[in-house]
């Protein structure tokens, strides 16, 4: 029932093609940086990353040995040697105007009675009926094909020398408590808002919905002042609290919506059986709410891990407090041209969210569908 028979094949083609184009368009920027992170600085600066995927042709010239190296074989004089240490050449030539004029193995007349041949492995042989003269050997142009060459050097360097290893640990230190704490606080609040009767409940729910969209820019200056005033200053404690607070509205909103949908009978019968609210919460609500808890945990994890603004405001700029987004930002500012450093750093910083993303995509989608009123 999908389409009318005649147009179907053409439409399927168009759909497939459009989808391929969009997927390529969406992945290619990331892919480009990923490829670059495995190339060294010279390679990045001299050619586009797309060249790195294929064998590249490089043209170079070498000098054959001079007349000193000639040996006599019968009535011909011969100079022989090897121009390449390793690799293969795809073509060669004897003038800079046509550096790739001949195929390997071809025998070429150079001048009066001299003949030159270069083999694929780089060995050459010049023969002449007369004695060679002159100390400088002949120039031979070689076109070699260099196979794709990738290195892990950049990663090694950024983790050890550029302080990214340290930043990785700092990011972990920020992210894990900032994900765990709001879940706990929000779960209790959500339970109260979903299953307890008390005056003002509707207003509180409305407040939470309202707070979902409060731009955190509004909070920055007052909280910076507040943290200084109460002696928290710039440190992990402050950023944990800040992230907890910024994540709470979404956590409460998501969890409450989920808990409201839990079967009423289970909770009622537990109450009748004399379970305390705390027991109901711990034995029934928490286990049943696992999908919602997981959704929020992923959200909060991604958001905290990827955050730059809150970290720059509430954490210091010293080595032992700088998170990965902060390091990236500094690298972009001070070493904007060092693409090998930037690319490797960026990939280390996005690797963890990407792993989480692909492993838990199901929960992320579910959370998005349930809570699509918050934005960043």
């Amino acid at each position, binding site marked *: 029932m999908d389409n009318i028979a005649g147009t179907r094949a053409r439409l399927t083609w168009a759909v497939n093609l459009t989808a391929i184009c969009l997927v390529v368009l969406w992945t290619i920027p990331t892919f480009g940086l990923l490829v670059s992170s495995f190339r060294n600085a010279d390679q990045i600066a001299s050619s586009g990353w797309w060249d790195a995927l294929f064998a590249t042709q490089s043209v170079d010239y070498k000098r054959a040995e001079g007349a000193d190296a000639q040996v006599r074989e019968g009535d011909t004089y011969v100079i022989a040697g090897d121009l390449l240490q390793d690799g293969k050449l795809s073509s060669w030539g004897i003038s800079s105007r046509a550096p790739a004029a001949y195929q390997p193995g071809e025998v070429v007349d150079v001048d009066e009675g001299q003949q030159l041949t270069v083999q694929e492995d780089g060995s050459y042989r010049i023969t002449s009926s007369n004695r060679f003269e002159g100390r400088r050997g002949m120039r031979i142009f070689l076109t070699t094909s260099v196979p794709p060459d990738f290195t892990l050097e950049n990663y090694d360097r950024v983790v050890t020398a550029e302080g990214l290893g340290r930043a990785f640990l700092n990011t972990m230190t920020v992210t894990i*408590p900032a994900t765990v704490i709001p879940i706990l606080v929000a779960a209790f609040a959500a339970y109260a808002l979903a299953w307890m009767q008390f005056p003002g409940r509707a207003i509180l729910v409305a407040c939470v919905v309202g707070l979902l969209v409060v731009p955190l820019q509004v909070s920055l200056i007052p909280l910076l002042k507040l943290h200084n005033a109460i002696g928290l200053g710039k440190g992990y404690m402050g950023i944990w609290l800040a992230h907890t607070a910024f994540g709470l509205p979404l956590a409460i909103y998501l969890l409450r919506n989920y808990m409201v949908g839990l079967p009423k009978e289970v909770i009622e019968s537990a109450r009748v059986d004399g379970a305390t*609210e705390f027991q109901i919460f711990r034995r029934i609500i928490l286990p049943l709410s696992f999908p919602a808890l997981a959704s929020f945990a992923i959200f909060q994890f991604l958001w905290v891990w990827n955050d730059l603004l809150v970290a720059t405001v509430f954490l210091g700029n010293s080595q032992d407090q700088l998170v990965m987004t902060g390091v990236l930002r500094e690298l972009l500012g001070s070493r904007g041209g060092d693409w090998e450093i930037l690319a490797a750093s960026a990939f280390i910083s996005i690797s963890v969210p990407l792993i989480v993303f692909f492993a838990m995509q199901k929960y992320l989608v579910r959370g998005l569908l349930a809570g699509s009123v918050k934005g960043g």
Partner: protein
Amino acid sequence: MEQFIYAAGTILVGVFACVTWFWGSNFILDSMYPARGAHAGRNIKRANLIRPWLFLGPALLILGTYLVYPVADSIWRSLHDADGAEWVGMANYRWLASDPKFRESILNNLMWLVVVPSLSTFFGLLVAQITDRLRWGSFAKSMIFMPMAISFVGAGVIWKFVYDYRGADQEQIGLLNALWTGMGFDPQTWLTLPFWNNFFLMAVLIWIQTGFAMVILSAALRGISEETIEAAILDGANPWQLFFRIKVPQIWGTIAVVWTTITIVVLKVFDIVFVMTNGQWGTQVLANFMYDWMFRGSPDYGRGSAIALVIMILVLPIMIWNIRNARREMN
């Protein structure tokens, strides 16, 4: 290592404190008003009056301190001078009205508000529709959804590389310039092109947000009842009509939600501009402008707060709309 012990310790202490609070306060409440004995009925009633606030307490405290109080404090600060010492009335706002950089930020933000939500929603809808029946559709969706997991800063690095510029005599290593010169034009420094550079920054956010729009809209498209679609096909609707006349009108509500959510993201957009141009070359936006005034050599918290409140005011209509919707759902 020390740091990890500190972090792990804090998690433990935090979790322990939370649990102690919830469990302990409930325990005290239950022993003060035991649900048995002569006054069981009255006791339960009283305990149930107090208990919600025990559960809500920590959340309300944190929300109050970190989100509600700051709004009030920002209003107060915006009416004071740089360090909050002296009352200046509306001076900060008058300054805003006359500042060319502020005007630039507002105009840019409005441009972002028009372009980013519309294109993200458009691409999201497109992808949602065309991948729906594809055999490799879920792979395609994953790929387009992926940028959601990448930080704005990471995205900044990725796209700065795409926009990279080399002199005309060198080989271009940025994809865009490589294509551009491949078509026979001169290479461009995309991020400094007046006016157009804004759109190159917007592309980054569209790239990130399309996945979000796609996920939500794809669920909405699946939720459309088969009957209306079947009926339309029987009536001879072609695929275009089916999509624009039957499907889209049925998911207007969801499109609105997607649109407003992305609008909020756009209003707060900071990292992308911060790391890619830092507001130079005519690309300033409100959030970055505010950061500027907060952290420049001598911070001016009065002006910074005033800018933050402008963002807040722009968000306000959406906030009210959300609350209305939520209340309607609750009733």
